[in-house]
């Protein structure tokens, strides 16, 4: 049975990739977001981000950033060109507002089964390939801090059938239980590794259930966002 995440969850099957995403705001509205953006029949861009702060102000800045993101991905631009355009437009507005946003980007091309990763201040995705766990070393300054994007170049990885990619915001691994302990990256990777055979949506449900078990459904002080990608078997 699927976990009911209301309008906070979204699922997609495109270009041979299953995608499942969910964002749970700490307040009524939050600064976290994710997006699945198809590019033709054989391509997919996946974005995850976190605008500083909470509530309506963060939500307004998130919407502005997403508008620019969708506009950029509608053109035939590389991930680096997309993040540069975001830095030059939405990033500048964040700067003026004394705010910033982290952004993780992945593009997938079915022709080569290749994912390309880029980060602007966002935690690296985690790739589960067979028994191996791999974290691309992509690093970059969050949008809104500097005039232009600065960071490592994109990194690529060939996905085999059944490989899983996990993207998340810091609110997930910093979620706390009643004792004040963090959920943590180790617990996240452990539960993904143990359930990597599941479909993307089911895997996301398992992770969220584990998170809610851990936190005892205690109100969290940061938005929690989780995105699962899985190459079809």
């Amino acid at each position, binding site marked *: 049975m699927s976990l009911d995440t209301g309008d906070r969850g979204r699922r997609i099957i495109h270009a041979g990739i299953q995608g499942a995403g969910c964002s749970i705001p700490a307040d009524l509205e939050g600064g976290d977001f994710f997006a699945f953006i198809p590019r033709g029949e054989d391509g997919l861009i996946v974005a995850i981000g976190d605008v*500083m702060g*909470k509530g309506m102000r963060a939500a307004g800045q998130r919407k502005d950033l997403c508008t620019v993101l969708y506009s950029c991905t509608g053109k035939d631009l590389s991930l680096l060109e997309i993040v540069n355009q975001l830095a030059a437009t939405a990033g500048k507005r964040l700067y003026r507002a*004394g705010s910033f946003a*982290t952004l993780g980007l992945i593009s997938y091309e079915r022709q080569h089964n290749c994912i390309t990763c880029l980060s602007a201040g966002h935690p690296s995705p985690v790739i589960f390939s067979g028994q191996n766990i791999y974290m691309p070393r992509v690093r970059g300054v*969050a949008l809104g801090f*500097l005039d232009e994007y600065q*960071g490592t170049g994109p990194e690529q990885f060939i996905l085999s059938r059944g490989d899983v990619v996990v993207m998340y915001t810091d609110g997930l691994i910093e979620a706390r239980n009643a004792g004040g302990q963090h959920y943590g990256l180790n617990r996240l990777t452990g539960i993904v590794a143990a359930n990597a055979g599941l479909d993307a949506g089911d895997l996301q449900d398992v992770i969220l259930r584990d998170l809610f078990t851990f936190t005892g459904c205690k109100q969290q*002080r*940061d938005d929690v966002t989780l995105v699962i990608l899985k190459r079809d078997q």
Partner: protein
Amino acid sequence: MLQIRVNKERGKTTLVVAGELDYSNIAQLQEEIERQEAPRVEVNLKDLQFMDSSGAGMLLHQARLLRSQNRILEITHIPANISHDLEIIGFFRVLETLQGAPQRGGE
């Protein structure tokens, strides 16, 4: 809960910050930084247990403001777990840029 201890010396003020710095209480530290008139303000985080993105954004914003006044905001003794999160968002790269670049005006 956020606690700030203020130590004033000649030409420098140190704010020793303890507890948790997040969206709910960043104004408290921001006001304390803004209250200082010394050319050098150190924010010592040795007793800080947690800082969220709002805290990081506020500190960089204050670092920029002091820089525009030809003053310096130093952020020191950052605990390892907080330093790791700051590294990911590019916090230290921005501080380096602020220290190296001429001040920005008008923004």
